[in-house]
C-alpha cells in the first residue's frame, strides 16, 4: 500500500474472473462466466435490466450476494492480492448525511482506523478542488445538488487512490449535461487505472470505454462486440460514434 509515488496510482493490474456463478432461489443468473478486464483500460458493461450487471460487479468487488449463492475466483493479473486495490462506486452517491463533504472524502481512513493527518486533509482538499466542490468542503451533503454529490463520491473514490475502480451506473441519476461533464472529469482523473463501468447508456459506454462488453441471455454470457477507437472522452460526431450506437442498440434489443 505504501507507494513511493503517492500521487500516481500503483500500476493497475488486469482483473480476471473465472468460473463466475450466481444463483438466486433456483434462478441461475450466470454460470461458468469468464471475464477479463484489461489492465489500465476502461471496460464498459451494457446489458438489459435484470441480466446481472450489478451482481457481476459486486462479485468483482468481493461483496457477497445477499440470499444468493456465489462462486468463482477473482484475481489480479499480477498475482498480488486484489481486495485492497479495489474502489467501488455505486449508483447512489452513498455520502453519509451526518458527515461534511470533507469528512466523507476522508471516511476510508476513519473506517480502517487510520489517523487523519494534515497531509490527508490537504490531499482531500486538492481532490475536492479537482472536482470543483472545494468551496463546499464543510457543508453537509444535504446542501448539495445531485451532480455535486456525485462529484464528492468521485472525490472519495479518488482519495482512496486505488488502481482498480468498479462503478455501477454512477452517473445515471444526473441530467444529460451534468452527466457528460462528470464522464469527462472521470476519464481525466481515472486515467491509467483499470476501470469497469456498468451503464445502461450505450452512448456513455462509447464515449468513455476502451472496450464495450455486453452481458445477455439467461444464464447470462459475456460478449465483446466492439472497442471504439480514438482517445476518450470521445465526441459523438467527430469520432463517428453514431453507427456504433445504432449497432449496439440493435444488439441490446436482440438481447432483451
Amino acid at each position, binding site marked *: 500500500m505504501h507507494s513511493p509515488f503517492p500521487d500516481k496510482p500503483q500500476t493497475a493490474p488486469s482483473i480476471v474472473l473465472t468460473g463466475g456463478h450466481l444463483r438466486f432461489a433456483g434462478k441461475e443468473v450466470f454460470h461458468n462466466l469468464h471475464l477479463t478486464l484489461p489492465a489500465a483500460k476502461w471496460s464498459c458493461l451494457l446489458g438489459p435490466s435484470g441480466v446481472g450487471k450489478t451482481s457481476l460487479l459486486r462479485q468483482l468487488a468481493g461483496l457477497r450476494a445477499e440470499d444468493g449463492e456465489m462462486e468463482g475466483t477473482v484475481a489480479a493479473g499480477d498475482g498480488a492480492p486484489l481486495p485492497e486495490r479495489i474502489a467501488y462506486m455505486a449508483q447512489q452517491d452513498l455520502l453519509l448525511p451526518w458527515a461534511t463533504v470533507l469528512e466523507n472524502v476522508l471516511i476510508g481512513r*476513519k473506517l480502517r482506523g487510520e489517523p487523519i493527518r494534515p497531509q490527508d486533509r490537504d490531499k482531500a482538499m486538492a481532490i475536492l478542488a479537482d472536482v470543483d466542490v472545494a468551496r463546499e468542503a464543510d457543508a453537509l451533503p444535504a446542501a448539495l445538488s445531485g451532480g455535486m454529490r456525485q462529484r464528492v463520491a468521485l472525490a472519495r473514490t479518488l482519495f482512496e487512490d486505488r488502481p482498480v475502480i468498479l462503478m455501477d451506473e454512477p452517473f445515471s441519476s444526473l441530467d444529460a449535461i451534468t452527466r457528460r461533464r462528470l464522464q469527462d472529469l472521470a476519464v481525466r482523473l481515472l486515467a491509467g487505472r483499470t476501470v469497469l463501468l456498468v451503464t445502461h447508456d450505450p452512448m456513455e459506454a462509447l464515449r468513455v470505454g476502451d472496450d464495450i462488453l455486453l452481458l445477455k441471455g439467461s444464464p447470462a454470457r459475456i460478449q465483446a462486440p466492439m472497442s471504439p477507437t480514438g482517445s476518450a472522452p470521445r465526441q459523438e460526431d467527430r469520432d463517428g460514434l453514431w453507427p456504433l450506437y445504432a449497432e449496439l442498440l440493435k444488439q441490446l434489443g436482440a438481447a432483451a
Partner: protein
Amino acid sequence: MRAIRLCITFAGLLVLWQLIVTATAAPTYILPAPLDVAIAMAERPGLLLQHAWVTFAEILLGLLFGTILGIVSALVIALFRPAKRWLLPVLVISQALPVFALAPLLVLWLGYGMPSKVAMAVLIIYFPVTAAFYDGLRRTEGGWLDLARTMGATRGAMLRHIRIPAALPAFGSGLRVGAAIAPIGAVVGEWVGSSAGLGYLMLHANARMQVDFMFAALALLASFGLALYFTVDFGLRRLTYWQREQSPFDD
C-alpha cells in the same frame, strides 16, 4: 415563535378550564378553578417542592438507567447473532407483561423508597428505547456497509462511523416516547406504595378532599413532564443535526 405559540395554547387551556368551572358551577372539592389551584400551590410551596423533588429524581434516574439499559441491549442484540436469538423473545415477553401489574411486586421486593419507583420507570422506558434503537441498527443502508467493506473497514469502525449514527434518528423516536411516559412509571409506583413523592401527595390530598392541592401536585408533575420532553427533544435535535423535521410536532 414556538415559545409564544406554546404560551397561547397554555393560556387557552386555562381559560377553557375556568369556563367549565363557571358553567358547571362545580364546587371546589370537585373541580377547583385555576386560581384556587394557584393559591393551594402558594400556601404550601415547601411541601410540594420537597415531594416534587423525589418524583423528579425518580423520573430522571429511571430515564437515565432505562436509556442506558436500552442502548446496551440493542447493541448486544444487533451485534451478536446468538444474543439476538435468545434476547429478542425475552424482550417481547417483557412487553407482553402489563408493567403496572408488576408495581406491587416491585414495591414488595425493593421497598417503599425510591428504588421501586425508579425500577418501574426503567421497565416502562426500556422497551421503546431498545426496540427503536435496535430497529435503527438493523436497517443500516446496505450500500454504506458495502462501501465500507470495500474500503477495508473494521467491524468496530463500521459500527462507530456508520451503523450507530445511522440509527440515531430511530433511537431518538424511542427516547422521545420514553421521556413522555417516564413520569407514568414513577407515579404509578408511588400510588402502589410510598411515603414520598407527588403521587403519594396526590393520594393523600385526595383522601382528605383537598382537591385543589391535588391539582397543584398534578400541575407540577405536568410541567415537569413537559420540560423533560422538550429538553430531551432539544438534545436529540442537536444529536441528529443533519435531520430535518423529525419530531411529530414539527410542521
